[in-house]
């Protein structure tokens, strides 16, 4: 905490009048920003506000178009491509920066392998890796290949990678977007410990409660402009949100509408078993929003992918609108009106090298075929509609998707799934990396879909989201469906109790 009246300290790292343009598109406008020693500084703003760009500049991954960077009060030009780590500046990328073919150990030490007489000191690196992972309470096997890790585990590896560096400033770009509350807590306690030893953190997040909880100061960006820097203690979540979007926000969650008990059952899963998920069963009614909660790695995604036919199942039955779905046939499921939105937007969701339109229409291309060939005009119309509907903001329409801001990618992915006009929609982490303003839009959008008579499954690690949105919440633990909460039962404590294995319902589903 910076106490009022304390002597002004020299910032470890400071940005002065930083501007940044990509080609003709300017994304940062003369931004000032500083990091004091031993503070946690939040950087918040809407999607595409320029947060990631700013911290990439401050860690040497991008160079500013104009402006200065000061390290310990002296102007520096940061070396490119992560070499700034030598100066104690570490960045946890918003998008994973891990190579699939490497193991966890190898990733952690990539680029700074420890050798003895020119030979890799594998014992040391393994021990060190284990130590850092244990510190973070992560059970990831240090010998596992990155390609075999779940998204959340990858995030933990990224964090471990940063923490294992002797860093002075750690930039964290939405590190908790895919973490559950438990892991977030562990991460925060580590951050506090290191902060007390003098390490500085810059924390980018759309989870404003976490910002309130962890940080000492907050800087708000809007449309690439600096808006305000203030001690966190002097703000609250709502005022930060207002500063971000520049207007007042109404209630985040729409009102819930429970479907009739005799409403038709559109999806019914019985005894579904995969390599990890055991004997899962539940039913989904028309117009229902069903939540799936649980700890990271509890098998929610695996269950959903098995339902959709993206993964083989060992046994069990899935009935969609009265007809059995063939196993492991996602195309057929799509055809019958089931949609699945992955949480891994980069690896499985979007073609990063293509523009927005081909991505948007990839799954629903048939709608734009007239007389056997594609109709670009119709695609363009769909694109325009999607931009409005999901508030996708880009400064240049021809931008490759890989260069869009994280949140806007997420919106595009959601738009892509919705283009198929499905009846049953499974959304894995719907608001990962999305700002509050847009979150609200998405929640209302989901509610509207339900009102239209569509059925939605929301898999989310953000408990407030599940609680605020769903009429029923299923809880998974270690591959099993352990609870199904309804109405009043739905509360953070109850969900936690099931998720942690303190309670268990018999015969769920």
């Amino acid at each position, binding site marked *: 905490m910076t106490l009022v009246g304390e002597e002004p300290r020299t910032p470890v790292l400071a940005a002065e009048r930083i501007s940044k343009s990509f080609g003709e598109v300017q994304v940062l406008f003369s931004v000032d920003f500083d990091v004091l020693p031993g503070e946690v500084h939040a950087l918040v703003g809407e999607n595409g506000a320029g947060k990631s760009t700013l911290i990439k500049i401050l860690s040497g991954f991008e160079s500013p178009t104009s402006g200065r960077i000061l390290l310990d009060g002296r102007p520096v030009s940061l070396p490119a491509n992560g070499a700034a780590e030598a100066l104690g500046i570490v960045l946890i990328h918003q998008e994973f920066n891990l190579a699939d073919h490497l193991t966890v150990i190898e990733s952690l030490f990539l680029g700074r392998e420890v050798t003895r007489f020119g030979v890799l000191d594998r014992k040391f690196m393994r021990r060190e890796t284990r130590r850092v992972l244990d510190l973070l309470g992560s059970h990831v096997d240090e010998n596992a290949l990155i390609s075999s890790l779940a998204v959340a585990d990858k995030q933990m590896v990224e964090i471990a990678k940063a923490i294992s560096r002797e860093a002075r400033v750690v930039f964290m770009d939405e590190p908790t977007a895919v973490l559950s509350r438990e892991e977030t807590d562990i991460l925060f306690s580590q951050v506090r410990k290191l902060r007390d030893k003098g390490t500085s953190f810059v924390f980018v997040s759309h989870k404003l409660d976490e910002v309130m909880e962890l940080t000492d100061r907050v800087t708000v960006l809007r449309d690439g402009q600096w808006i305000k820097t203030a001690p966190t203690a002097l703000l609250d979540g709502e005022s930060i949100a207002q500063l971000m979007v520049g207007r007042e926000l109404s209630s985040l969650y729409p009102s819930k509408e429970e479907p009739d008990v005799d409403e038709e059952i559109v999806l019914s899963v019985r005894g579904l078993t995969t390599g990890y998920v055991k004997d899962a069963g539940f039913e989904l009614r028309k117009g229902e929003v069903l939540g799936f909660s649980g700890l990271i790695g509890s098998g929610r995604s695996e269950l959903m992918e098995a339902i959709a036919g993206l993964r083989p199942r060992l046994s069990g039955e899935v009935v969609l609108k009265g007809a059995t779905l063939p196993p492991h046939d996602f195309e057929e499921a799509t055809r019958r009106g089931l949609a699945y939105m992955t949480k891994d937007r980069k690896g499985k969701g*979007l073609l990063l090298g293509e523009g927005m339109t081909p991505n948007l229409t990839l799954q629903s291309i048939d709608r734009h075929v007239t007389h056997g060939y594609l109709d670009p005009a119709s695609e363009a119309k769909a694109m325009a509609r999607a931009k409005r509907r999901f508030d996708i903001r880009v400064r240049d329409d021809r931008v490759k998707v890989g260069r869009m801001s994280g949140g806007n990618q997420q919106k595009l992915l959601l738009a892509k799934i919705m283009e198929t006009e499905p009846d049953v929609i499974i959304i894995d982490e719907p608001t990962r990396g999305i700002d509050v303003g847009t979150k609200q839009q998405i929640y209302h959008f989901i509610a509207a879909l339900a009102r239209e008579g569509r059925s939605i499954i929301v898999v989310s690690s953000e408990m407030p989201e599940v609680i605020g949105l769903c009429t029923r919440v299923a809880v998974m633990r270690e591959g099993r469906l352990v609870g199904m909460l309804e109405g009043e039962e739905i509360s953070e404590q109850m969900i936690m109790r099931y998720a942690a294995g303190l309670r268990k319902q018999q015969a769920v589903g």
Partner: protein
Amino acid sequence: MSMNTETDPRAPRGRGWRDVDLRAIAPFAALALLLVIGALVNPNFIGLTNLANVATRSAFIAIIAVGATFVISSGDLDLSVGSMVAFVASLMILFMNSGAIADPALMLAAAVALAVVIGGLCGLANGLITTVGRIEPFIATLGTMGIYRGLTTWLSQGGAITLSSPQQQALYRPVYFGSILGIPVPILVILLVTAIAAFILYRTRYGRHVVAVGSNRDVARYSGIGVDRVRTIAFVIQGLCVAIAVLLYVPRLGSTSATTGILWELQAITAVVVGGTALKGGAGRVWGTICGAFILELVGNIMLLSNFISEYLIGAIQGSIIIIAMLVQRSLTRKS
């Protein structure tokens, strides 16, 4: 990310559409450069006859390479095309020699149909071995390359297979040597095949799927695209293109042997890559491909027409020209 790697990550910022356009234009710039060099080397070079000759004989590689553009765009590779040419041509000629159908025109039509069917089947075999068998396309098609070539050797008993009926030959000859409105038939065929391919790749649902599968297989799968089907069809298209090339090849020489089409696979792949399609898969450039095929043929032609290069060094100079042409392309796309 994988695409970032491709589009020159050194200059990642903005500039957007300009360098894209230039990337597509680059092969044509290299082509223009070669035309200038050729004109300097030999005055006959720029004559219509010569250029028509070169364009005409680039037909085989060009058409095969159009097929290869699909396979490569979808992230695969087909090494068997050269042997496939020999195999399909052998069967076609053997069929025509068999005299199964009396009427020559009818016979020719049947032979054409046969060639197309066999080409498609060979492609299908490649596709299934690769996708269903889950074997790296490099190995799978290296295997079928040996198989098609071996079968051809066996069919020809180590010799040549020659169209025996002069009547058939006379009837078929114009397909390679004839011209319509002054334009040689093979050139028309190239243009037609490329136009159709461009239409498929850029204006149909299947084309989109090819690009998606080639640039990220997981994304394609999670978008409900039948990845294996898309890949297999690409191999079939390749097979059909090979068959079309055979339809032009047989009337040209009226004969084929176990050595027909050796190394054509390398040439086809080179044409595709010179034309601007990345070997790692993703966006394909069909027009660039035929430009690439034309460039390859031109380099050989210029070598031959120039009289000051030791024939021993032709290979070396050809290699250098290819590298220089690519460097020119690169610098073109980087500068502006």
